[in-house]
Every structure is written in C-alpha cells, then in structure tokens.
C-alpha cells in the first residue's frame, strides 16, 4: 500500500486505532492490575487504576490454597497427553494425505472439515454416557480421549499444509543419492517440518489448556478439576467473591497462553481460516 491517506483521514483513523487499542487491552490490563491489589483497594467504590502499593498477596493465596496446584497438575497431564497422542496421529495422517494419492483421500479431508464444525455441545451428552460406560469419567484418560478427537482435525489440516510446503523433489534427490524412501523422509523432510510441528503443537496446547465445556462435562469431581474449571468455580455469588484472588489466578493461567500465542500467531494465521477453532 503505497498510498498514504490525507491528513484529516489519517488523524481520524489514528484516533479510532487508539480507542480500539484501549478497548482491546483494558480488560487484560485490569486483570493484571487487580491481581496486585489488596482487599481494601478491591472493595473500594473508587477503583484503583494503577497498582501502586500493591503486593503479591493474592498470588500467595492462590498457591497456598493448594487447589490451584492440583488443578494445574490435572491440566498439565491432560494437555501433555493430548498433545503427544494428537501430534503423533496427526503427523502420520498428514503425511499420508499430502504425500500419497489413495482412494478415500478426498472423503477423509471432507470428513475432517465437517468434524471441525461439530459443536461440542452437540455431542457431549453421548460422550458423557460413553465415558461413563467405560468408567473413564473424572479421569485424565477420559478427558484426553475427547480432547484428542477435538484437536485432531485441525492439527492434521495444519500439518498437511506444512508437509506440502516441503518439496517432494528434495526427497527424490535424496533417493537418487541412495537413500531409501523412509530414510529420505526422516533425513530430509522431517527436519524441515520441525518448526511447523512446534507451531501446531503450541496451538494444540493452547486449545487443550483453555478448554472449558468438555472439562465441565467429564470432570465432575472437585479433585479432578482442570485450571479453567477451577477458575470458573472461584466466582461464587453466595460466597462474596475474592476478586483479587481470581484475577491473580486468571493472570497465572493467561500469561503462558498469551506468550505462546504471540509466538506462533504469525505462523498459524493462514491455517486459522482453514481450520475452525474457537473456545
């Protein structure tokens, strides 16, 4: 875009931009700000805009309650397990779809697209019944089973793009030089795919880490809560909400996600329109 807008237009556009910036960031700022405030500052009709004189008490409370760490343990286990299984399954499937022509390939791709559109709410009743029968309710494995299915379609779809980005000619050249097909794949293509795998993995991590609906359905017991569940039960109309504590908890959950997201966003941007994921 070589054209620059005339001055009044640009001035107006900049104002809109600043307003948008303020609206987009204020809640995030408010979360971090409130997490440093003590009870009196929180319960003051006049808001404390900047956390001067704030401290880390809220964070201490969060850690000391123990529930946070328990929930984090569950979250880490489910997310880790989901990632390992989903990435492995998705990777081999992506290779098949992008490096081979086979009967049923197109239907497989279409199915992936359709599956991504299925709302979790449309299936969680029977997923609950299924896990109940398998005695997997309130278990890390049970939640992982539904999470893997949740992230697989998107993961396959994105990885396929990355595999296709590595020219097959490279593998052919290696095979000319005496590599077997498998060797050529693992020595040439695989290393080139590493950034793509990392980006897709980070994205899968964010999805599983943030997921709320299925966790609510599968993890009904208090000692099996994931972090989002723990956070959601923190607000309670009847208990007089400890907003400082909640904001500290929110900050702890959000910061890693925001950092990861900013790291991979550029790489994933193109894939986002193709794969439909949203909490």
């Amino acid at each position, binding site marked *: 875009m070589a054209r620059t807008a005339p001055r009044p237009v640009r001035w107006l556009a900049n104002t809109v931009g600043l307003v948008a910036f303020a609206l987009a960031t204020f809640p995030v700022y408010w979360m971090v700000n409130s997490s440093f405030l003590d009870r009196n500052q929180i319960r003051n009709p006049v808001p404390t805009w900047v956390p001067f004189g704030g401290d880390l008490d809220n964070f201490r409370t969060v850690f000391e309650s123990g529930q946070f760490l328990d929930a984090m343990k569950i979250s880490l286990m489910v997310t880790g397990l989901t990632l390992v299984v989903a990435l492995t399954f998705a990777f081999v499937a992506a290779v098949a779809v992008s490096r081979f022509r086979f009967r049923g390939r197109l239907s497989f791709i279409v199915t992936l697209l359709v599956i991504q559109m299925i709302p979790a709410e449309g299936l969680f009743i029977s997923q609950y019944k299924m896990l109940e029968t398998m005695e997997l309710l309130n278990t890390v494995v049970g939640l992982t089973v539904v999470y893997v299915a949740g992230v697989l379609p998107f993961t396959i779809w994105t990885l396929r793009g990355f595999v296709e980005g590595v020219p097959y000619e490279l593998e052919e050249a290696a095979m000319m030089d005496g590599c077997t097909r498998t060797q050529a794949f693992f020595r040439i293509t695989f290393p080139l795919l590493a950034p793509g795998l990392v980006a897709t993995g980070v994205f899968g991590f964010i999805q599983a880490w*943030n997921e709320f*609906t299925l966790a609510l359905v599968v993890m009904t017991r208090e000692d099996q809560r994931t972090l989002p569940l723990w956070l959601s039960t923190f607000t309670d109309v009847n208990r007089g909400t400890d907003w400082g504590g909640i904001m500290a908890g929110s900050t702890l959950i959000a910061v890693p996600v925001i950092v990861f997201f900013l790291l991979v966003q550029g790489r994933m941007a193109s894939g986002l329109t193709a794969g439909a994921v949203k909490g």
Partner: protein
Amino acid sequence: MTERTRRTRGTALPYLLIGPAVLALCLALGYPLLRQLVLSFQEFGLAQQFGRPPEWVGLANYRELLTDAYLWRVTARTVTFCLVNAAVTMVLGVGLALVMRAMSTPVRLLTQTGLLLAWAMPVVASLTVWQWLFDTQYGVVNYVLTSMGGDFQGHGWLLRPLSFFFVATVVVVWMSVPFVAFTVYAALTQLPGELLEAAEIDGAGVVQRLRYVILPTIRTVLLVVGLLQIIWDLRVFTQVYILQEAGGSARATNLLGTYIYRLGIGGGDFGTSAAVAVFMLALTVVLTAPYVRSMLRQERTV
C-alpha cells in the same frame, strides 16, 4: 503437484498412516454420534441411570420437544443471539480492518498488538475479568457510568435477560473481533493499489470505492469469515454458562448448548437432551454446508 506425488494404488501404507487418526475420531466422535441418535429415540432418565434398561419410545422425545414452546423460545434466542453477535463482530472487525489501512504505521502496530492481546486471552480468564468489570458493587463499568452522570450504583447487570445478553455479547464480540480484523486486513493488503488509484481518478468517492472496488475484491474472505462467525456464535456455551452461574437466571437465558447441558447432565434426562443435541447438530449442518463447499473449492485449486 499431482504428477509428482506418489501414486500407490493397492498399497496399504497410506491407510496405515491415517488409521490411528480415523480410529481416534471414530471412538470419540463417531460412536457417540450413533449412540446419541439411538439415545434420542429412548426414554433415558434417572431410572435408567440407576440400572433400569432404557425404553424404546420412537419419536416421542422429538414429538415432545417440537411441541414444547420452551425449545422454540430457546432456539429463537440462540439464533437471534448468534446473528446479532456475528453481525456486530463483522461490522466492527471489517470496519477496523479498513480503518487500519489509513492509520500511521506506529498506531497501526499498536492497534494490532492490542488486538492480539485480546485474541490470546483464554476464554475463562477473559470471562472472569469481564465479570469483575461488570461487578454490581465494585465494578469499573458501574463506577464509570455513575461518574458520567448515570445512576448505576449497585446495578446488577446479569439480573435481567436483556442486559445479561448484553454482557455476553460484549464478551463474545471482544474476543471475536481480532480474528475478523486480522483476516480481513490481510486480504486487503492483497488489493492492488493501482486499482484504487484508477477508481479515484475516475472520480469514485470513498463510499463508491468501498462498494465497487474494495468489497468485491475481498468478497470470498468476507463470506468465509462471516460464515465462521455464524457457526461459532451458534455454539456459544462457556460465556453463557459461566455468566449464568454468576447470577443469571438459567431458564430465562438458556441457549441451545446450555439447555442441552442442564437438561442432560444437570437434570438426568438424557433421552430428551440427546434429541435437542441432534436438533442442534442438524441446525449446524445446514449452516455449515456453504462453508465446506467453499473450502472444497479452494482445496481443488490448491
């Protein structure tokens, strides 16, 4: 690409490679889908939960539902909520993308950073913050509105359905605008500058340039993004569920998703809730068909 890809008719290798993924999807989605269909034709309530075999009732669940005024109210509410949210998100997102073109570079980068931040926030974390912002007693929103002359001291935002949905819309739109703005802005950067200049020389004003040059060029992107918004906003669950738990009346604010949850897992009536879920899936399929078709068209051109 097609020429050089290995053609391996008759080899089992590609099937072995997609095998694990297919099995996982069949187990966690395919089987529940079938089971749900079966369930929706059965009487499956608390008695069955305690061991009595489910009773086959044919279409009774559906008949009961389709004649239930409440389901239609929830459906109408869901569709309205979805369309309003999708429309507001699209207008703000596309508007912002257009305005971004006219910003000076530092301001544009700042705006984009802000949008990324909002986009990156985990759903549940952003919900807790928005609840805190709209808090009845100590919320910033009430404070600001009161100091601007309104009477919002101790105003409970979640008590009335309309204002409950206003809060829900604010949260949903806040989270969704960045995706629209970024995608549309990316599409706009593909727009050749000469085209706009030519239109300008021919005497086209801002509105005409927008209408006859800019919008037609990004039509496909707008369609896909708009459709995605509709699909996503049709299945809003977390936002509404958490706001309900925070003090909204569930019955007056249920959308399809929360209705299914409260009917089945909350109330133990699995047969009826499975029927509602099937209904919701059908609604999604109808809305999704054009999206899948457009993605397939892209697939063929890739």
